[in-house]
């Protein structure tokens, strides 16, 4: 197999070049598809649009954009966070005449979106997850995100109520602040029901590793965990594994209820339609770019999945009560005294961190009750 011949030299090259010539000889001449009178919006996804997760949540909002009058959407999926995404943004601007681009993966922001925003000051770039900072980042860039830890807290309530072993499992990609905040909120929600509940965490190391995610799910179930949730790009494998093994699950990003009709309790879903519509409307009306957009349950940025059949009436009542408080805006999740799982005080007694507190954006600990290591 390794006995490759190197006899052909120049001929090989000619042959390869020849194919290029042959291909370029094919007829072409397709004009621009972008309609001049409409706002062309480009949307870029890092994974497939039908992943039952992160990308699907974005695609659901885009489906709503497509119904807006005066808007034409062009989409591209599975675009890696490399020079490829820069070229895709440029192609949307040059070939499709897009004047607003939604770059939906966190890793697109720095350097890719920032670079393109400087190069195309008349195009607007909306990025999901980044932390737009006045004075540091271009004015034609905006970042939007949601306080989804509120839904994770509600998940925790449903999970601890349904659990018999009071051992919950969380499969996460990387120990970064956004993920840690979700894990901690889930634990705090669970402990509000049962102060002895624990959350065991497994970090897989990357955003989309279905095999490792399945292994982690099985391993946690073997250790007595009877409710699983996660923070990875697609919860599909984890929710399916939980259902097959007969344990409960809470979803993430989008609804996975269809994948686990028996064991799906509830889930933390994005409601990206809210920020998407706001940003597109501002563009259509010629108002300045919305640079910083964040919100939680009460702002319609996130929503819990409808309860599954396994959620008890009592759990529903508890969850609805907390949700009502969150909708009123007076339910801070992180407040002192709070210990991390090494025994160190991370929030002093009497101190309350509101959802918008920038301290929460740099969370680097797991709270007491979470079994795992950052």
């Amino acid at each position, binding site marked *: 197999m390794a006995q490759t011949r190197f006899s052909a030299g120049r001929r090989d090259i000619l*042959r390869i070049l020849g194919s290029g010539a042959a291909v370029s000889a094919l007829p072409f001449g397709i004009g621009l598809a972008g309609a001049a009178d409409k706002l062309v919006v480009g949307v870029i996804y890092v994974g497939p649009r039908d992943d039952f997760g992160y990308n699907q949540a974005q695609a659901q909002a885009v489906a709503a954009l497509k119904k807006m009058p005066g808007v034409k959407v062009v989409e*591209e*999926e599975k*675009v890696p966070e490399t020079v490829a995404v820069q070229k895709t943004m440029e192609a949307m601007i040059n070939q499709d005449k897009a004047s607003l681009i939604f770059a939906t993966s966190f890793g697109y922001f720095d350097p890719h979106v920032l670079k393109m925003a400087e190069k195309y000051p008349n195009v607007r770039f909306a990025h999901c997850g980044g932390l737009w900072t006045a004075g540091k980042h271009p004015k034609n860039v905006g970042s939007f995100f949601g306080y989804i830890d509120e839904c994770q807290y509600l998940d925790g309530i449903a999970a601890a109520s349904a659990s018999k072993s009071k051992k919950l499992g969380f499969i996460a990609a990387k120990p970064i602040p956004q993920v840690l905040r979700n894990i901690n909120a889930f634990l705090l929600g669970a402990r509000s029901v049962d102060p002895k509940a624990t959350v065991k965490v497994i970090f897989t190391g990357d955003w989309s590793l279905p095999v490792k995610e399945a292994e982690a799910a099985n391993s946690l179930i073997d250790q007595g965990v009877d409710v699983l949730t996660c923070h990875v790009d697609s919860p599909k494998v984890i929710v399916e594994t939980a259902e097959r093994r007969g344990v409960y699950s809470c979803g993430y990003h989008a609804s996975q209820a269809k994948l686990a009709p028996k064991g799906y309790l509830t889930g933390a879903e994005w409601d990206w339609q809210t920020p998407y519509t706001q940003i597109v409307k501002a563009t259509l009306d010629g108002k300045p770019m919305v640079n910083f957009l964040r919100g939680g349950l009460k702002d319609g940025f996130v929503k819990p999945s409808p309860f599954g059949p396994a959620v008890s009436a009592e759990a529903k009542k508890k969850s609805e009560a907390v949700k009502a408080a969150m909708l009123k805006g007076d339910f801070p999740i992180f407040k002192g005294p709070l210990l991390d799982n090494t025994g160190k005080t991370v929030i002093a007694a009497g101190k309350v961190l509101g959802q918008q507190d920038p301290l929460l954006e740099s969370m680097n600990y797991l709270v007491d009750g979470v079994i795992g290591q950052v």
Partner: protein
Amino acid sequence: MDAAMNRAMRAVAPLAPFTAAALAAALLFAAFLAAQGFEAPEALGLVVEGAFGSAFAWQNTLARAAPLMLTALCVALPARAGLVIIGGEGALALGALAAAMVPSLTAGWPALPVQLLMALAGFVAGGAWIAASAWLRHVRGINETISSLLLSYIGIALFNFLVEGVLRDPASLNKPSTPPLPDAVLIGPLPGLEVHWGLVWGVLACAAAWFLLRRTVFGFSVGVVGGNPRAALMAGLPVGALLIAACFLGGGAAGVAGMLEVAAVHGSANASLLAGYGYAGILVSFAARHNPLGIVAGAILVGGIGASGSLLQRRLDLPDAAVLVLQGALFVALLAFETLNRKGARRV
């Protein structure tokens, strides 16, 4: 007249299999699209327009092709020595990491020496990783294909461990990265173009590899080892050293690809740069039959498919998987027609 005709025929003949392969792939893809209810002629037109239809399309293609030239060399150079190496992704990761460490150690230096040192660091790190497979092969008889793949996983794990651990810039909150490179050290675009200097590095590396393999005693010796290691031993060639050297150079090329990703694209080492260039390089090298000059064309072809895939998605609402069908059809056709051609060549 006959002689002239003959000469013309002979010049054109080698192009025939490749042209046929491209046409066959186009037909296959068209049939696939038609079966899905798409306008096949329009789609084929978009394939060409997206990859080569304008100055912008060409630059799009070349920007995507640049890193593949270097990672394909990580397959082609060891292949000359008879080794099938598929661990380029790990070499790229470690090359990127080594390169990203250089600026913090050379604060205050002018840009050019820092960049060269970064390239050297990337080259040595990537080279050492792939050379380890050759060494294991030579000393312990371990299959280099398997060991290079497994070492690649270790390399990537090491990369993630260090980038998320001791080498992490504390300011990189939700995207763990090494500290950002100083602006002066960043490698910019080619004058007047949107493609960075990595393209030139890639083409030069391919040319140098071709010269090394085809025009030097070293290249000839490596070829002898690849042809028949026992005969090479009998002839007194240092087989182990040649295997290791060929792999070191190949791994080095992938390491430099990693360095370029850091210095020309990302500005730091982070997990985004592990986008599969090391694996795509395997495809490119095999399509080019491990010929370093053929790699330049092969990389442009794969880059072109990336660029046209982008346009296909946006204009026809095709899923990304359809683009994979096009790429698959093209490479299967290429290999099939290549085999036909080689059978013919052997008979002569």
